[in-house]
């Protein structure tokens, strides 16, 4: 029986609440908007849609679905009782509830003859929707393919009393079977004693696939499992003894991590601003520039990989295509409050499809900021890991964490994850240590336990997360302590403006919450070169120091100022000299002084960076006719247009967590009073406004073909295919479909007597034909 029309009817019959639930569970179904229920159903059955949904199922859901797939008759489905029998240890009630959930997910449907058309899990027949069978693979629950699929007959063997038969088996046969029964059902024939295997093959317990491989057929496997598809039903996660961490330790770890994160990121951006990171020909950034940045930021190379990736996720670093270098972007991140800086990074990390922990692994080695770090499912894996972490504290919507927080180890979390998300568990295993290390750096966890801000992040409650971090981070200090050993100590986080100025006139030392700045002749010289005078520096230090300037420091500043600039070098395009200092002073004091930016370098000499022609023009505009040095008339003959360097446009970018709200504002035309429409309601309104189905059109037509093919594979029915030929015309072929794997159909062609593979994308229609009639193409 075709399930697609059934699913369409089922969806159309659901009430608004049920449909909204479906759209919440499977949001990808409305992206883009589905035009009618048929399109919605087709998407629900598509391989991509199913892959995502199956990834969301927990272990009992997946176990019941697997049992349903194995027990369901392709035409009539299976009853709750049949499925319950197939799941060892499950109660009728549990299976009923889970089947209802699977219907909610649109993974299974009721048979209409047995129901009123709604997805109600009473004593009814259920069918898994198209493609679920294929998505679970050819060996669901470790069971092999059927005798029919393996091309063998087993009626004799199955009819016999298996136990009695096995009692006569040669030594080793029972052990061999015991290995294959729990799955995987495939075995390799060794070179040693083949006696037991040959006996099992002979008696039909096993079927040879080729010369060296055997398979335990599904019917036999089930019989040996006493009819249980699932031998051990796990309705709840296994109990774990998890260690705890005092909340003081956890908060200390998280807050110190957040402070370090923000400090390191700021210093990384500064380092990359000084020295942009060049890309390799093969993509990514090489080890050497990373090592330099690692020294600049005093952070280990391995950790710096994460920081670089995080900076690119957050849009703080971008690749400049003209120079092939990574440079900081003008995002305004540095100017944000520290809590906002943190949330910006955290949300960018959550949404990113990059997996920084891949850097440095593999062969060839994955380089940082290269394409190889991309993993489309990274965001989903990250979100699920955090959700599972949340389950230790009472679920994903946990707001606060108790005083003695549970701190699961990687293994414990991995085991818990495998219950909640059994399908992606294997993919997450390799990435899990990386995720947790990153969560620790970001302060989502502290000492391996979830923090309060981490809980808010899981709950996507940005406001609360911001408030928590803002409250917990120490307030910035606005003063320093000046000491006789020529240091200035900032006892806490200094505002960027203050720390920037200090870093100009002193060298930073050490690494940590407090800033240590050491003054030296060289560092003060840097300040003088940048245009600070002795008086400026003294005034600045007096203003921001809680203590008077110590004598040695005062002496150093005076001494350095006196010795600075004994020999000076600079660039000048034009000089202007006058007969008396008063004349020059008068010129400079007027408008012209500001216009051509004169710098006085001696009482009667000033210089300008503008070319002589420009200066000459400006002077003549105010009626001053300067004589030209060396009679250089070319200055006047060839006036050139001055190009001023373009200053980077100041624009602030939105943090990832603000982007969604901003999008909503745009959709509502910027009217803050209007609440944007929930996309689910829009989708619902559209579905309700259209007829449920026009067969043979749109997305559902392809899905229907797909479904018929899988049905034919399951039943082994003779099918007539209409396909697009190589010349664009239609070709017909009568085949017996054998398997549907990865978008390709394996068929046997009875007329030609051989097997072949057909791409499903070329099949236009598939019609089941009675065994007696045969048509030639």
């Amino acid at each position, binding site marked *: 029986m075709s399930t697609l029309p059934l699913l369409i009817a089922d969806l159309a019959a659901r009430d608004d609440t049920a449909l909204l639930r479906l759209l919440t569970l499977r949001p990808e179904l409305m992206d883009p908007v589905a035009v009618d229920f048929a399109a919605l159903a087709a998407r629900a059955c598509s391989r991509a849609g199913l892959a995502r949904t199956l990834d969301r199922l927990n272990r009992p859901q997946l176990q019941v679905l697997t049992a349903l797939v194995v027990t369901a008759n392709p035409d009539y489905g299976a009853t709750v009782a049949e499925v319950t029998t197939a799941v060892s240890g499950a109660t009728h009630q549990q299976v009923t509830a889970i089947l209802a959930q699977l219907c909610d997910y649109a993974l299974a449907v009721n048979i209409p003859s047995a129901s009123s058309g709604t997805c109600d899990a009473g004593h009814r027949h259920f069918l898994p929707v198209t493609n679920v069978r294929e998505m679970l693979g050819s060996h669901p629950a470790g069971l092999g393919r059927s005798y029919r699929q393996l091309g063998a007959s087993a009626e004799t063997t199955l009819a016999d009393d298996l136990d009695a038969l096995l009692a006569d088996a040669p030594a080793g046969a029972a052990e061999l079977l015991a290995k294959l029964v729990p799955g995987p059902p495939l075995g390799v024939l060794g070179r040693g004693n083949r006696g037991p295997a040959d006996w099992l093959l002979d008696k039909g317990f096993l079927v040879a696939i080729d010369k060296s491989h055997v398979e335990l057929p599904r019917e036999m496997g089930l019989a040996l499992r006493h009819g249980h598809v699932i031998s051990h039903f796990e309705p709840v996660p296994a109990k774990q003894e998890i260690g705890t961490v005092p909340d003081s330790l956890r908060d200390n770890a998280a807050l110190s991590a957040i402070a370090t994160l923000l400090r390191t990121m700021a210093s990384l951006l500064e380092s990359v601003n000084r020295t942009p990171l060049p890309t390799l020909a093969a993509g990514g950034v090489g080890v050497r520039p990373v090592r330099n940045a690692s020294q600049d930021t005093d952070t280990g190379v391995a950790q710096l990989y994460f920081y670089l990736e995080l900076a690119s996720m957050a849009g703080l670093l971008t690749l400049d295509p003209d120079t092939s270098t990574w440079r900081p972007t003008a995002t305004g991140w540095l100017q944000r409050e520290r809590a906002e800086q943190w949330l910006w990074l955290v949300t960018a990390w959550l949404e990113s499809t990059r997996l920084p922990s891949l850097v440095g692994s593999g062969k060839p080695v994955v380089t940082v900021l290269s394409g190889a770090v991309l993993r489309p499912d990274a965001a989903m894996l990250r979100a699920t890991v955090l959700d599972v972490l949340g389950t230790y504290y009472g679920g994903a919507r946990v707001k606060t964490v108790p005083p003695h927080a549970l701190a699961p180890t990687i293994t414990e979390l991995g085991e818990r994850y495998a219950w909640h998300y059994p399908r992606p568990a294997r993919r997450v295993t390799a990435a899990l240590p990386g995720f947790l290390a990153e969560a620790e750096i970001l302060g989502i966890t502290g000492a391996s336990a979830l923090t309060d801000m981490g809980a808010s992040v899981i709950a996507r409650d940005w406001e609360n997360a911001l408030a928590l971090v803002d409250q917990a981070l120490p307030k910035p200090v606005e003063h320093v302590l000046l000491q006789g050993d020529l240091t200035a100590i900032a006892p806490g986080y200094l505002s960027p403006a203050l720390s920037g100025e200090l870093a100009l006139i002193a060298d930073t030392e050490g690494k*940590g919450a407090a800033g240590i700045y050491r003054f030296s002749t060289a560092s003060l010289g840097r300040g003088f070169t940048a245009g600070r005078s002795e008086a400026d520096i003294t005034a600045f230090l007096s203003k921001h120091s809680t203590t008077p300037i110590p004598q040695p420091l005062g002496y150093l500043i005076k001494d350095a100022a006196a010795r600075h600039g004994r020999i000076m070098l600079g660039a000048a395009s034009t000089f202007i000299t006058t007969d008396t200092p008063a004349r020059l002073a008068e010129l400079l004091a007027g408008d012209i002084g500001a216009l051509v930016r004169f710098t006085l370098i001696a009482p009667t000499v000033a210089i300008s960076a503008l070319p002589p022609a420009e200066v000459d023009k400006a002077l003549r505009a105010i009626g001053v006719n300067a004589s030209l040095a060396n009679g250089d008339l070319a200055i006047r003959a060839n006036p050139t247009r001055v190009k001023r360097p373009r200053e980077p446009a100041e624009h602030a970018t939105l943090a990832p967590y603000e982007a969604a709200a901003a999008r909503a504002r745009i959709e509502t035309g910027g009217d803050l009073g209007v609440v944007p429409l929930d996309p689910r309601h829009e989708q619902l309104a559209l579905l309700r406004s259209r007829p449920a189905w026009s067969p043979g059109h749109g997305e559902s037509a392809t899905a229907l073909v797909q479904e018929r093919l899988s049905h034919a594979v399951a039943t082994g029915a003779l099918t007539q295919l209409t396909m697009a030929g190589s010349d664009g015309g239609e070709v017909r072929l009568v085949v017996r479909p054998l398997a549907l794997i990865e978008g390709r159909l394996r068929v046997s062609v009875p007329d030609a007597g051989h097997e072949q593979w057909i791409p499903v994308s070329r099949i236009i229609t598939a019609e089941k034909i009675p065994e007696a009639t045969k048509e030639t193409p």
Partner: protein
Amino acid sequence: MNDGPLIVQSDKTILLEIGHPQATEARHAIAAFAELERAPEHMHSYRLTPLGLWNARAAGLDAEQVLDTLLRYSRFPVPHPLLIDIAEIMSRYGRLRLEKDPVHGLVMRTTDFPILEEVMHAKKIAPLLGPLIDAQTVVVHSSQRGELKALLLKAGWPAEDLAGYVDGTPHPITLTAGDADAVDSTGASLGAWSLRPYQAMAVENFWAGGSGVIVLPCGAGKTIVGAAAMAVSGTTTLILVTNTVSARQWKAELLRRTSLTEAEIGEYSGAAKEVRPVTIATYQVLTTRRGGLYPHLELLNDNDWGLIIYDEVHLLPAPIFRMSADLQARRRLGLTATLVREDGREGEVFSLIGPKRYDAPWKDIEAQGYIAPADCIEVRIDLPADERMTYAMADDSQKYRLCATSESKTDVVEKLAAQHAGEQLLVIGQYIDQLDEISERLHAPLIKGETSVKRRQQLFEEFRQGIIKTLVVSKVANFSIDLPEASVAIQVSGSFGSRQEEAQRLGRLMRPKEDGRTATFYTLVARDTVDADFAAKRQRFLAEQGYAYRIIDAP
């Protein structure tokens, strides 16, 4: 988050805000495991080092107490990786233990077999070990106890030495403290004196720990600490000192402060070779080599010393280290003002002499009035044009000598001496030519290497009594010379960038003055030359101890 006085940095330094109400409490708490690195006026900085943490473990502190202290007093969250690191480092101490076994003698035990396995396979350690008795115990050749401890420390598995000490030959010694009738060698009354609280604490810590080093500023009475340790021990004692003058001062001080008589104290130096219940030997005589052998080494081994005191342990020469390796069964006390070894062998001091048992910042002792306050002044001198040219063209190896011995320094010394006329003044320098000239210009006697011990002692005595007001000394007077009334010192040149030399020289002024005067320490520096760089390096130790140098231009 509390508002404590500490800021724990991720680079393993701890900043302590002095002005904070809890500062004293916090300082006492962290001094046990962190090394004071800098002590300027507002923020002291401490460093967490493996050696410091192991010192703490040796003193019975565990990681949990250390972490608790940091978390309790820290103003900001403490970097978590740092906490883990501390716990990990501290857990390494004592995983290997040296113990006495009734059957096999000295053995090394562990409860963690892989560590034993690791060290047994280390190339340098393996030859020091005997057969394996069981999975957790290995025999150690008793002569290799010190060597093994030094190597284990280098390997990162410092062993806890529980093998105990030999008792030594008993020889009762009592202090004359509290005895109003106590007299010194000349018969002059000492009056009632008593052990200062920090001295008593230092001795107590040392005795509880068994062996170790006590760090006290110059003039804070290290000799008395030595005497007190001898009194507690009540055994024959060997005292190792830097030179003969120092040996005689030890002797005089012991006669004053203890019940020991002249006949009980022997001098073992170039001049005399007496072995008595208390013997004072110089490093020089012990390390004299003849025909590839150390003929005086038996002194260490042939006598059943109950206590060995190493004076100025920061100067301990390498051969003495090697010899000390064989003396692990005897109690060892190291004394120093500056546990800064220019050769970086602090690790060997830790494993061969023992962990640091007591350390007090100089400014603390000064605040208690036990050492004189000092005013440190750096005088910057402009070289005259001709000297600048000579300096500019000189070979690198000659540069320091040229600027350090500038003519203009002598002029400045004269002016400063005139300013301090009537005060007890020392001029200290490195280069003999320069000192000869200064001595001539100031009409002051000069003590240098070639001056005989007798002449030295005579000059010191005259200086002490105020007959001589000014004394010019070369580096022979760097250590252990008791000049009670020197109140002004002018340093004209020094051994390049030696931090401990600078500290020891300032130390010459620190004995408390009778009238409570402030001592003045001038250091003359030629501007814009390597002299200034070396001066900055030399001053680091004192600057870290809180002595802020004022800088003035030459008068």
